[in-house]
């Protein structure tokens, strides 16, 4: 997986999936770019992330730990034009989290990681030159870069499936890969 940009912004779908995997830190660490999440997503998904942590009886919050280690940067809007774009995108998408993710990525020419069908088509239209990655692409990259055993990879994808309740869309380019591991 090549990332053509210095940073990659995770949207709420991906944050949840990586968090559900139980290997958030390792996965983020393997990404060849600075991983970022917007302040809006962090704020809005905090309770859901906490629920995930509670359900798995984890003492430490991987999300907070990744931030403390500097692996995951949280960013807000830097300029009035970013804020203006954000509000315009909210009007289109009706979703603060996706709008903040897209607005910041567009203004700073950063890549984006999302599985959201609506956000993907919107982002492709707004910034056709910017790279869009998915949960599965990032996890696949991690498994290859770190030589993760097939048993571990299966347990990670199973955790994303069961705890994160994520299933790839019918036309996902890595659906066959996912099905092969999960079989």
């Amino acid at each position: 997986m090549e990332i053509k940009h210095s940073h990659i912004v995770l949207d709420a779908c991906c944050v949840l999936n990586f968090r559900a995997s139980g290997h958030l830190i390792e996965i983020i660490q393997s990404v060849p770019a600075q991983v970022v999440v917007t302040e809006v997503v962090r704020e809005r998904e905090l309770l859901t992330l906490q629920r995930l942590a509670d359900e798995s009886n984890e003492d430490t919050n991987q999300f907070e730990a990744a931030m403390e280690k500097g692996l995951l940067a949280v960013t807000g809007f830097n300029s009035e034009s970013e804020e203006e774009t954000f509000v315009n995108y909210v009007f289109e998408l009706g979703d603060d989290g996706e709008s903040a993710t897209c607005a910041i990525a567009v203004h700073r020419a950063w890549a984006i990681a999302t599985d959201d069908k609506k956000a993907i088509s919107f982002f492709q239209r707004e910034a056709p030159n910017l790279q869009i990655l998915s949960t599965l692409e990032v996890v696949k990259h991690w498994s290859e870069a770190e030589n993760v055993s097939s048993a571990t990879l299966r347990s990670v994808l199973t955790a994303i499936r069961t705890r994160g309740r994520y299933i790839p869309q019918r036309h996902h380019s890595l659906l066959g890969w996912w099905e092969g591991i999960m079989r």
Partner: protein
Amino acid sequence: MAANILDNIDLRKLGELLQQARKKSGMTQADAAKVIDAARTTIVAIEKGDRRLKPNELIKLARAYGRAVSDFVRSSPVTEPFEVQFRAAYQRNEQEEARITPIIERFEELCRNYLELEKIMDAPIPRNYPQEYDVTNMPIEAAAESIAIAERQRLGLGDGPIPMLRDILEQSVGIRVFYLNMPAKYAEIYSYDEQLGGCMAINLGHYEERRRWSMAHGYLHFLAHRRKPVVDFEGQYKRIPESERLAEAFPKYFLMPTSGLLSRFNDMYRTHGKFTPTNLFTLAHYYGVSIEALVYRLEDMELLPSGTWDRLRDRGLKVRKVQQELGLDEIEHRADTLPIHYQHLAIEALEQGLITEGRFANFLGVDRLEARRIAEVLREHSSGMLEESAYLDLRQA
């Protein structure tokens, strides 16, 4: 992407929404002014729609009010605020108002969401509305029974029980029915708006028999006093108005029509040579009504001596216990907060990429994890359907 959306948005509407949100958050105009480093008069002007907001100001205010920016700039349908509709709809005091206002607001939000989903999917709820029934100068009981008979005929319900009344009202009539948690003394809220049509919120905390009664009660308001919003709760009136007496009389005729009930009662009586408490419980279960409602109805029809219910009650009748002993299951129902059509519109919009997952979660009023769980269940309901084939017109060759 167009230039700043805040230059083109309806400022008056935005101002109203901001004012409502500020009040709900318990902030004063002076508090809000501090948030954006402005004078209180600036907030006054913003809320009146006289001053444009900068994106930064909107973001700060939304955060201070604990709201999403999308609550203010989304292109949602404009309907008459329920608060205005309900202002004179029920006798209330401050305490009552504090209890019911958040429920009315949630009801309104859900109705608007429904309309928004219909617009997104271009799939308006089919309306099969009759003309409003004119009941002027009619005796109440006769009017209630005549409307019940006419409606049963119109909807092809015959004279038997009405299973799944909620589905009939939603799918055969086109009324939006939500089940919401309310304090026990509240039964139902009814509202009508040209765009939304008939809308009902029923107390989720009640037994299904009671909810069905409340739905029928609300339905009469729709049939006979369509544009008059209603909040129905115990002890509301010192003197019950005629419209309310009609709504109270209607459910018994609608849920237990005279001809059908008489024939079933006679069948039971002939078979056993008497009408036993077991017959009573079986019959109530068959019609999906409470024992009390059925006994009163049979008393009215002179099939049981008057005072039967009082005697049963005085003997310490324990309805739920007897129902369990007789093996009578809970009557069939769907107790979801949201109408089934609403849920299907939301999942279809998500599947087609017309809304984001976050928006889908908002429509369902849950967090993303729960939204994904519900999405799975809804997808299972249309199991076996490929994404593409789900939208085929099966009537096309």
